[in-house]
């Protein structure tokens, strides 16, 4: 907000009288506050009989509580032992629950045994590859649609055979894989026979 009579206000303010605090004002304040108010209050000691009466009353109440029939069972050693056992069992149970809820990761076990060694497998599946290669070369040379279709089929089976051979290298002579090899070889032979007829 803009002051409309700024000059008049400034002159009026300048005419106001100025006051300064006495130079020893802070020292006088400090002197009045020392010593502190709490230190200046009077102190009184209670008579000795007050403390004796208090002590006597407390002792009587404690003995009343101790001798109360409601709490007498607490002093029973069997109850105390039972309580300790219950507490222990409770801790055990809580521990078990916490232990079982925590993920301990996978359990790993090793075992050894022996079994009858199966008959060795003779890897004879590559014995006729030379004749297959020759036929495929002839198909490529002739470049006829029917033969090319059969060649593609044969190639797919040959790729599958290579996959199976790779598995036999990586995982050993598993009878199941060898049966798959036999099946692929029969399919390849079937395609090969169809190629021979076309040739």
């Amino acid at each position: 907000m803009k002051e409309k009579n700024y000059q008049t206000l400034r002159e009026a303010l300048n005419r106001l009288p100025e006051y300064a605090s006495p130079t020893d004002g802070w020292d006088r304040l400090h002197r009045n506050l020392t010593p502190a108010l709490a230190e200046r209050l009077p102190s009184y000691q209670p008579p000795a009989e007050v403390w004796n009466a208090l002590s006597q009353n407390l002792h009587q109440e404690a003995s009343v509580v101790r001798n109360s029939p409601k709490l007498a069972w607490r002093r029973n050693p069997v109850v105390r032992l039972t309580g300790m056992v219950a507490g222990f069992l409770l801790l055990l149970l809580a521990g078990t629950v916490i232990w079982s809820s925590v993920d301990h990761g996978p359990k790993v076990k090793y075992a050894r045994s022996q079994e009858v060694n199966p008959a060795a497998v003779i890897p004879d599946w590559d014995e006729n590859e030379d004749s297959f290669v020759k036929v495929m070369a002839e198909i490529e040379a002739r470049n006829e649609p029917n033969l090319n279709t059969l060649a593609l089929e044969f190639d797919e089976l040959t790729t599958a055979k290579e996959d199976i051979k790779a598995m036999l290298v990586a995982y050993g002579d598993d009878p199941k894989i060898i049966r798959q090899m036999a099946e692929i070889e029969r399919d390849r032979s079937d395609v090969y026979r169809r190629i021979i007829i076309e040739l």
Partner: protein
Amino acid sequence: MRNLPIYFFALLALLGTCVRAQTENALREVVTKTIEDTYKYTPGKELAVEGEKAEIFVETWDKQKIQVKVVMTARHPQLEWAEKDLENLEYISEVAGQKIFLRNRRKDDNYRAKSELTIHYYITLPEECPVYLKSHFGGATISNLRNQLRINGEFSAINIDNVHGLLDIRTRFGDITGERIDGNVVINSRRSDINLFDVGGNFTINATYGELRLSPNLRMRDLQINADKSDVYLFEPIGGEGVAYELSLNNGEVKLPNGRKVIELEKTTEVRRFAIQPNRERIGTVTATVSFGDLYLAKQNKEVEALRAGRN
């Protein structure tokens, strides 16, 4: 003659040694590593397994947990080799968000194993847990699932029993055998035989180079078959006179059952098309397109029906 007993005992000792050596050679060491783990299941979680040369078995239970047991085995006449080859196998499990991912691999891909190595997964989970299996060699056996099952297999036999829901199966060089399947099912197969029995719902089967033997039940609403260079054997359920057929053949033979009114729609040297109208209210449709293969349609026999009734 006086030395005869000595020769006799020497011969016995020799034979004994031979037999012992033979027995020792006939045995091989089997070293097994078993890994067991359990995961808490909550709705929304799914399990993905990628197995290589692994037999995967998936079963269900009532608990809200997924239990996994992986058994890796090495077999070799020498213990050292069995142990060394087993060390090259690695099982990895990861949890990423809602997905639990399990797989096995070889630590060194170029390592040449001397032992016969096998891996088995035994997985038990709630029936509503979606499952995705990828299997390269080996096999997968799944039963009693009720939600979603996806399988991508190569050189892996797939066995499914009593599975309902969404099924998506892709397989190459791996046969499929299924029983008691109900839901929306898509199968894409190449060089794989498919044998399905007591199946219903909506099925789409695209097969190349395979033999399909399908025995749907009366709950089959829509069965679409696209078979290329494959033979298809369809066995209609007893009481299935309400099923309509649309059959198309390209360069193939067809054999249809007696007692149904067959309408021939097209007949050329290569293509033949048939329609079989339902004898009563339509309960489902079967559409089959077969190229360079044969199609057989026949009734399921009573023995098969009785077997099914006995099981239910």
